[in-house]
């Protein structure tokens, strides 16, 4: 007979794994991806494929030739980064090469240089997006407009997003709440449909990968704070419902602020984190240089996460 194994207890495991978590996140992103392809057609599909492929490739190359460690691309985290990065850019022809640079920055600088998955202080997809926004300000703010379903042409008509239009003057009056909820608006390809994002988030909640704490406080804070501003002066500030339905608030709150690696561990820390994200988003939108502030807000709160982990402790059983 074989020798017996020995080890400390426990002798069973829940069978949960990083790989399963990451692939479930990918599954949760599928509804938003389908909406993006439906509205932005072939462009959205190609940008997504290029983004995912370059993230996976860069991680594989770095692990094989620089770190010389066994590859971890199978865990699906590079795919998550690739999808989220694609979701954060406009679906245009230019993006088909620009997103590769974003992927290199996201994977190479924001993730692997810190030691790979789990060690990165900032969400790689957001770091990649901000890098692109600063490096390619024109291409990153050339938004294709939603026309018919599944457009197969590469040259989509472009125009301002509701947020951009509002920053310039006033909200186009023809955008209804329902348009914004379903995604019938201009914007980055993954952020347009609140419905698709909420579907994915509901799946993640059901699978216990995220909890309500960050998304609800993030969106709630943004809603309340913008609501107060709107009540003070409805002509100068956007109304709160439109505020949370447009731009990246839904995508950021459900998928990027909830990134396990870069958000606090304790529930109390998560509440502060979500609150900070919501507050900063509205501050940047209204008084900053950019029409959209979600990614900056999350990046800033990412940097506060280690402090929140230190200050916010779980409730102890004993004391």
């Amino acid at each position, binding site marked *: 007979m074989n020798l017996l194994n020995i080890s400390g*207890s426990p002798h069973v495991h829940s069978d949960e794994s990083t790989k399963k978590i990451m692939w479930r996140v990918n599954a949760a992103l599928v509804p938003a991806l389908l909406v993006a392809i439906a509205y932005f057609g072939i462009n959205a599909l190609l940008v997504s494929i290029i983004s995912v492929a370059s993230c996976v490739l860069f991680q594989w190359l770095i692990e094989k030739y620089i770190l010389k460690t066994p590859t971890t691309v199978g865990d699906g985290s590079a795919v998550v980064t690739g999808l989220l990065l694609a979701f954060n850019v406009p679906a245009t022809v230019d993006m088909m090469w620009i997103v590769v640079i974003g992927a290199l920055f996201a994977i190479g600088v924001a993730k692997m240089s810190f030691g790979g998955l789990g060690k990165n202080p900032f969400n790689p997809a957001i770091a990649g997006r901000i890098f692109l926004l600063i490096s390619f300000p024109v291409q990153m703010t050339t938004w294709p407009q939603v026309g018919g379903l599944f457009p197969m042409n590469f040259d989509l008509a472009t125009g301002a997003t509701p947020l951009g239009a509002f920053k310039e003057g006033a909200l186009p009056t023809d955008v209804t709440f329902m348009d914004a909820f379903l995604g019938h608006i201009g914007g980055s390809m993954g952020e347009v449909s609140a419905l698709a994002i909420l579907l994915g988030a509901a799946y993640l909640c059901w699978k216990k990968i995220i909890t309500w704490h960050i998304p609800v406080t993030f969106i709630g804070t943004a809603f309340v704070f913008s609501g107060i501003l709107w009540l003070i002066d409805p002509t100068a500030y956007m109304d709160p419902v439109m505020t949370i339905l447009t731009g990246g608030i839904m995508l950021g709150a459900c998928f990027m602020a909830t990134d396990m690696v870069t958000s606090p561990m304790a529930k109390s820390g998560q509440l502060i984190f979500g609150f900070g994200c919501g507050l900063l988003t509205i501050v940047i939108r209204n008084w900053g240089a950019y029409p959209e502030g979600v990614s900056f807000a999350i990046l800033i709160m990412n940097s506060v996460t280690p402090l929140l982990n230190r200050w916010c402790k779980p409730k*102890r059983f004993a*004391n």
Partner: protein
Amino acid sequence: MKTFRMGGVHPEENKISNDAAIEVMPVGKQMVVLMNQHLGAPATPIVQKGDKVKVGQLIGEAQTFMCANVHSPVSGTVTKVEPCKDAFGLAKPAVWINVEGDEWMETIDRTPDIKRECTLEPKEIVAKLKEMGIVGLGGATFPAHIKYSIPEGKKAEYLIINAAECEPYLTSDYRVMMEHAEEVCIGVSILRKALGVPNAYIGIESNKPLAIAKMQEMAKQFEGIIVEPLKVKYPQGAEKQLINAVTGRRVGSGKLPIDSGCVVSNLGTAFAVYEAIQKNKPLIENILTVTGKELPSQHNYIVRIGTTYNEIISHSIGQLPETTGKVISGGTMMGKAVVNLDAPTVKGNSSVLVIGEKEARRAPETNCIRCGKCASACPMGLEPYLFSLLVKNNRVEEAKAHNILDCIECGCCFFSCPANKPLTDEIRLGKNKVRAMMAAKK
């Protein structure tokens, strides 16, 4: 339904030996009786080579405070008094006995009659628990006479009997409830009398509806026994969690249950108390489960303490299956992996659990993704991921400041970790480091 306030996990229950009635395992040819089968100092052997002993005769005497008597589980001749390796490979003082016949001490009542009346005073009950070598059978093997001697200034308000049996696979407590409900209730009444508390609560996880019904029916015939169904959640049967579930009270950091007015004993202990007090039978037998998905059959046995693991295996299933990966004494969450199958069983052993090769291996460790699942699963509200980092970097002071000593080693953190980090192992190491540091400071 009552449960504890935070954390917890739900491992697969695997109570596959639930329906196997308790069988009596025959006595082997030789018995090795270890002298420390309990928490504390070993008992002092009071027999010598060549002495004849009977079943139930005192062979190891408790001569220090934290110690328990040890009795002979068999009749025969003492062949040597020498150390023997226990199941985990550590040499322990032991008495070796060649088995001859099965001659019991005359004082032991071996009739099947059930005796309900107990006329002993509380002090006499405690003295008799000591004499009979009763220890807690929930796993820690804490000497019962110490637990039931309430220190000056403390007051017991609740007696809680732990029948949660929240560990996967184990079914011995379940079988005792199904087959010996009356004896258990008598045992509980005796313990209640010893403490002088109005009520005793028997906490049972609700995945044992038949046992709950049986105990509730039986408890009606007794005064002050309340059966408390509990939510199915591991570690419902951990002492502090059980107290919290039943009474709502919390045992503070570094405190004992009695500081919160509670005394907790295992269901198996209550049965042993009945036999000791009413039948004069010392603690010489274990009720244990022989189980595992790989095994051809599932069993529950009454086994004389001192029977070796190999004897139990060969009697119950012949031999270990080819696919055996690990043999565990206890359940899969807190049980210990057995190193030495030639070792004798000791008081408090509750199972011989065999798990397969595949299950016995841990998946490779990957980076922590800071998901916080370990902290959410921790029933003590601790941060296992943090201990893992602190212990690796030898930051022992900080680990202590973050209450590492509160850890009950239930295993929920490792169980739920998606990165397969051996968190429980690291915390155990950390606790040892903290204790060493505290000892060095004194």
